[in-house]
């Protein structure tokens, strides 16, 4: 095949996918930037260029700052816990303990449920006085508590749901990595007299680094991408205690129909995702050894 034919084939084969990507990924990202400098068209008035007005509104908007800080706390609260649990689960079901097939199933099942179903199940679980949690704490004589309805516990209660849903998903990747590890490493270390903890710390953990990175990036993205449970369980309340960034964008864009301000908020979210991408590319990839 000559060079020109190669070119034509390459471009033509790529064209359909590229066209859709351009229309629904590249164009909206750029259009979003443009619209964030415009006003929201209202009634008969078309959108006008307003410079950084939307961003000034954003800086002065306490709900935005709360959503951002909630989202960071949500990330900090869910990611390390779900990753640590995932690793623990993977180590356990990798060992030949009795019933590990059933355990693996138990850990993994929440992963394939829709977040919306998970949210419904947990909403009932948390229901004051009726829910299983309340019956349990009530049996110990503890006072009734509205977990999702009080400012101090609502975000924490949502974090538990997220950890429950995601740990089993991350477990799969750790399990795959553990199973691909050569058993000779353990034999060699045992001959040298290394303890189990030493072996984990100095051999297993470094070898799991690529997996940890992969899981970490996914977990960070999910922390900013998935807000289905907010819609079902709290709608950002009480008093914005569970307002997350994407849910706030959804509210501004589709309940208050302020598309210009929603565009400015989306730029912040895109900025965060961009930082994740850059961090992955420049900082973490170099520190991780790939085979």
């Amino acid at each position, binding site marked *: 095949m000559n060079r020109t034919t190669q070119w034509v084939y390459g471009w033509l084969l790529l064209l359909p996918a*590229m066209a859709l990507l351009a229309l629904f990924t590249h164009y909206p990202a750029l259009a979003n930037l443009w619209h964030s400098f415009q006003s929201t068209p209202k009634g008969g008035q078309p959108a006008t260029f307003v410079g950084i007005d939307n961003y000034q509104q954003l800086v002065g908007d306490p709900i935005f700052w709360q959503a951002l800080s909630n989202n960071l706390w949500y990330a900090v609260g869910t990611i390390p816990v779900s990753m640590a649990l995932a690793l623990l689960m993977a180590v356990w079901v990798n060992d030949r303990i009795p019933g590990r097939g059933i355990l693996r199933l138990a850990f993994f099942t929440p992963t394939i449920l829709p977040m919306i179903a998970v949210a419904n199940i947990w909403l009932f679980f948390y229901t004051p006085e009726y829910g299983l949690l309340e019956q349990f704490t009530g049996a110990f004589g503890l006072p009734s508590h509205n977990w999702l309805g009080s400012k101090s516990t609502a975000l924490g209660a949502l974090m538990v749901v997220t950890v429950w849903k995601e740990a089993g998903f991350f477990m799969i990747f750790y399990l795959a990595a553990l199973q691909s590890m050569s058993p000779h490493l353990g034999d060699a270390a045992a001959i040298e007299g290394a303890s189990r903890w030493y072996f984990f710390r100095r051999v297993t953990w470094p070898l799991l680094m690529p997996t940890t990175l992969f899981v970490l990036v996914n977990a960070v993205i999910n922390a900013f991408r998935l807000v289905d449970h907010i819609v079902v369980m709290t709608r950002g309340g009480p008093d914005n205690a569970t307002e997350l960034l994407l849910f706030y964008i959804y509210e501004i864009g589709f309940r208050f129909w302020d598309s210009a301000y929603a565009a400015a908020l*989306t730029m912040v979210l895109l900025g965060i995702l961009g930082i994740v991408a850059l961090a992955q590319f420049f900082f973490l990839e170099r520190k991780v050894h790939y085979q």
Partner: protein
Amino acid sequence: MSAALNVYEPRGIGRALETASAWLLGALWVLPLLYAFWTAFHAPEFSTRLSLTAPLTLANFVTAWQAAPFARYFLNTVLLVSMVLAAQLVLTTLAAYALARFEFPGRNMLFALVLVQLMVMPDVLIVENYRTMSVLGLKDTIAGIGLPYMASAFGIFLLRQTFKGVPRELDEAARVEGCTPLQVLWKVYVPLARPTYLAYALVSVSYHWNNFLWPLIITNSVEARPVTVGLQVFSSTDQGIDWSIITAATLLTTAPLLVAFLLFQRQFVQSFMRAGIR
């Protein structure tokens, strides 16, 4: 698996301790799910009274099924999922083939542009994509839900890796036999990539079966709503707080995926693994 597989597996008390903790965590993990099953299969008066003698009933499922057009919602979801998957398979195959086996100017830059979607997913571009769908007249249609996802960077990436692993000799042999590039793709690459296709298909189907926020935004009629959105509409407006019925509806909407998962557990787990390891 031989007995000497892992010298660091705990023995004696350590092993008992590990088994006990693993089972405790496992029990904790299935508890919310078991509770949901309990509530769905019992009359409302038993949803807060856990008694072994409580009679089982399917009444909650019947009530839920009759109270909302779930049959239509299921049809919409099946249409959505199969449409998205079919388009994804075709588009990602062609694009991955181009990126893996053809030399053309701009290839690396185009690949980088594809990878942008791994970070900037349609899930976060809801405001602009809504605008685009309005212009295209695709608001409140199943095509409108699926279109932003049909060119999948993840799928292109995965298949490109797989295609790159296909020995060049097979490709060349087929060309010598007189195959056109598309015939080579169909006869050599696609059959060899079957495990990748299966893995990708399972991940894609479960993703789109479960997707919620974008379908919620872009649909507002029974004719276009997938089950996830239908479930939300049903449990937030129609029912007040009859938990037995809401829980039954929740399990109902999840059942096909859950049953498929339990039947093909191994394939599911291996697919998710394969999709993750890249």
